[in-house]
């Protein structure tokens, strides 16, 4: 009986411990909220609507990587390079870093990104591509075969 009582007290104490933090009326601010700097200096909007991207960007990346790797299809729309070229921080030229487009959200959500152990997180040099060559307008024009 004594051991059962002791175990019950310990269990309750363990469960109640978070309350000790909340007692002060303050949330534990260990992880900074993400700063979502989208860096939209390439075009008007992303290749997909924001809410679609938010939920499904990993599916696009996953699908694209297999298409590119195994079939040689290098569609610009969902290519990782294209994402980075657009979303890279104008100062650091990277999507990583404390305020990096990819890293700030991923760090907050505690989802580790595997991409950048191999892929460069930095935007390609501007001179390599003319401006707006990969924005939505340019892609539409390329599909039609006309000039943007």
């Amino acid at each position, binding site marked *: 009986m004594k051991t059962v009582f002791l175990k019950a007290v310990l269990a309750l104490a363990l469960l109640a411990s978070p309350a000790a933090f909340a007692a002060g009326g303050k949330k534990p601010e260990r992880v900074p909220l993400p700063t979502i700097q989208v860096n939209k200096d390439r075009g008007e909007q992303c290749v997909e609507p924001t809410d679609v991207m938010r939920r499904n960007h990993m599916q696009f990346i996953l699908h694209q*990587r297999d298409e590119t790797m*195994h079939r040689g299809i290098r569609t610009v729309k969902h290519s990782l390079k294209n994402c980075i070229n657009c979303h890279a921080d104008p100062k650091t030229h990277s999507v990583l870093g404390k305020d990096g487009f990819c890293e700030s959200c991923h760090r907050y959500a505690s989802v580790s990104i595997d991409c950048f*152990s*191999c892929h460069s997180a930095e935007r390609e040099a501007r001179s390599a591509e003319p401006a707006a060559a990969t924005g939505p307008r340019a892609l539409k024009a390329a599909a039609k075969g006309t000039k943007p």
Partner: protein
Amino acid sequence: MNINRRQFLALGGAAAAATLAPGLRLIELAQARSPEEAAAAAHRWGLLIDANKCADGCTACVDACFTENGVTGHGRPATDAQWIRKVTLKDKQTGQVQSLPLMCQHCEHPPCVDVCPTGASFKRIDGIVLVDKHICIGCRYCMMACPYKARSFIHEDTTGQKAHAPRGKGTVESCTLCVHKVDRGDGTTACAEACRQAGHQAILFGDLKDPASEISKRLATQPSQQLRADLKLNTGIRYQGL
């Protein structure tokens, strides 16, 4: 309008040139695949290397490959990656010396593809053998299996990768036949281009399945060999002058 013969011929010549010129450009563009198009089985990309033209001590191809693909060294020759290397051969009987570049042979029946447990090592439909580093677990079995010791393992954290050539710690890599250049329609690899610019022209890139390509014509008219031909792997890299 009154024109004489000379003027007519000049006009006609100019008109013909104006008609043909964009057409020639279009043929070039037609060979460049659009990004949406998949690689096609109608092609098989390969190299023809003439060992007689390869210069001893020249490393233009190696330097170009390493620059193009961001293959950086860390001052540790045992573990640093080498996608291509110059090999010096000295005949045991005659003492004759020659050199040649050696890289992934892009076999038709690659042992590395057979042994990869996850299928990360694979052959693309147009003959280029690649490592899908997304699913490579770094077991190095393909390195055990490669008859040409073409593969390298990345032994440390890597930064500063080229955007077109991702490479990272814990995965295996090898010569990609500059697949990013091939898909873009450049019509050559970094090593072949560098050798041409160095004046040796020992490396020729081309489509082995296209009988009109220069590589096919040379292979059809001159003797050539595969390395370790007894293994019957039907390599995409052929050598002359061995």
